[in-house]
């Protein structure tokens, strides 16, 4: 039995940038700020860009949101002691975490990262298709929203993914990013719809 109750959540509010990405708030204070570039020159894996917008119930972009990204490395292993997939190599040059504010004018969030490998599923389940975990807070969001982004060019793996299998087929496309091959490299575009038609699937994790 648990003896303490979880501290209640409160909205991160419109000024979340001050605390978590102060340069976007307009000032530099930390020597090392957690940012939206997850890769260093020696990180293993295919360089990709992830970008998208967070859209509200009337389709307006939320320009004051913060998106966090957590992902496995190119082999599909997380940089965390609970990941004991010993057959996959660790990558000491890749933490797998980033955060990005949506742009104050365009509403766009951007990550520079690598494409993750497939990760083992729960015991007895097939492996999970490559995906990144996203967590979203903003003014008007009372409890952070968790979702996943899968990759459109992983059709076969997505078809076997045990989490996508739980999702009503009509809503699965809300979790799959579109690939665009650009001069600078591949980009995956993923809009998050908070409400209404084509609302993104959010998870109680």
């Amino acid at each position, binding site marked *: 039995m648990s003896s303490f109750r979880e501290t*209640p959540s409160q909205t991160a509010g419109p*000024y979340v940038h001050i605390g978590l990405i102060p340069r976007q708030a307009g000032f530099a204070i930390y020597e*090392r700020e957690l940012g939206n570039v997850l890769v260093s020159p020696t990180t293993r894996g295919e360089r990709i860009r992830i970008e998208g917008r967070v859209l509200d119930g009337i389709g307006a972009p939320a320009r004051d949101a913060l998106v966090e990204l957590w992902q496995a490395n190119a082999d599909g292993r997380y940089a*965390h002691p609970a990941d004991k997939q010993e057959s996959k190599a660790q990558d000491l040059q890749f933490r797998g*975490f980033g955060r990005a504010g949506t742009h104050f004018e365009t509403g766009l969030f951007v990550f520079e990262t690598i494409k993750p490998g497939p990760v*083992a599923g729960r015991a007895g389940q097939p492996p999970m298709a490559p995906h990144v975990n996203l967590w979203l807070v903003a003014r008007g969001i009372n409890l952070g929203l968790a979702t996943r982004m899968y990759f459109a060019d992983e059709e076969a793996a997505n078809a076997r993914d045990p989490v996508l299998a739980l999702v009503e087929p009509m809503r699965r496309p809300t979790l799959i990013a579109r690939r665009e091959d650009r001069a600078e490299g591949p980009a995956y575009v993923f809009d998050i719809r908070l409400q209404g038609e084509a609302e993104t699937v959010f998870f109680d994790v």
Partner: protein
Amino acid sequence: MALDDEFLQRDLSQHPPALTPGYRSSVLRAPRAPLLSLDATLSEVTGPVFRADELGPLDHDLIRNYAHGGEPIGERIIVHGRVMDENGRGVPHTLLEVWQANAGGRYRHVNDRYLAPVDPNFGGCGRCLTDETGAYVFRTVKPGAYPFRNQINSWRPAHIHFSLFGSGLAQRLITQMYFEGDPLIRNDAIAGTIPDASAVDRLVARLDMNAAVPLDCLAYRFDIVLRGRRQTLFENKLQGA
């Protein structure tokens, strides 16, 4: 992945629902479909690990970490407490980040246009790792109340925003800490998003005279509870009995 890595189901009665019309910003940003429950996988029981050497020596001291030739105006306070899980175990070495308005209720943020002045010596953010017992401490000035455009005369009580990671993504939490005795709490639209009054009360830091520094600063205590890991009785206890 071991069963012990899994977290207890979140008790949603302790949190605000997504749609809270009294807090108007929630109306167009609240998902309408129910959340989809997910059995924990490696993606949720893991989360980022941060090291002490990534932080600067003044990151937890908001009185000094943005001082430009002086100290910030305001009531000097220490805020301290313990980060634990629902089983009462301390959460060690986890990243805790805070942000707040200055003593006049103004944020150092390009989008804050409240008429109270920016304080040249106050940034308004800080961060630290909890120690091996889950304890944390930082020093700051008490933030001021300020108006926000919910209704035209809506005011936020003095508060400090807290962001916590825990040891796995499922423990991630952002919340706000209020101050004991603040009369603005009871009419606040944002504190009011939490349906359970006793849950709101757990966001209110207590004056802690034992931690005050005589002739220097007052202190407030704020303990934070993150989700607990499952305790698998069969594996952990009965087996060895």
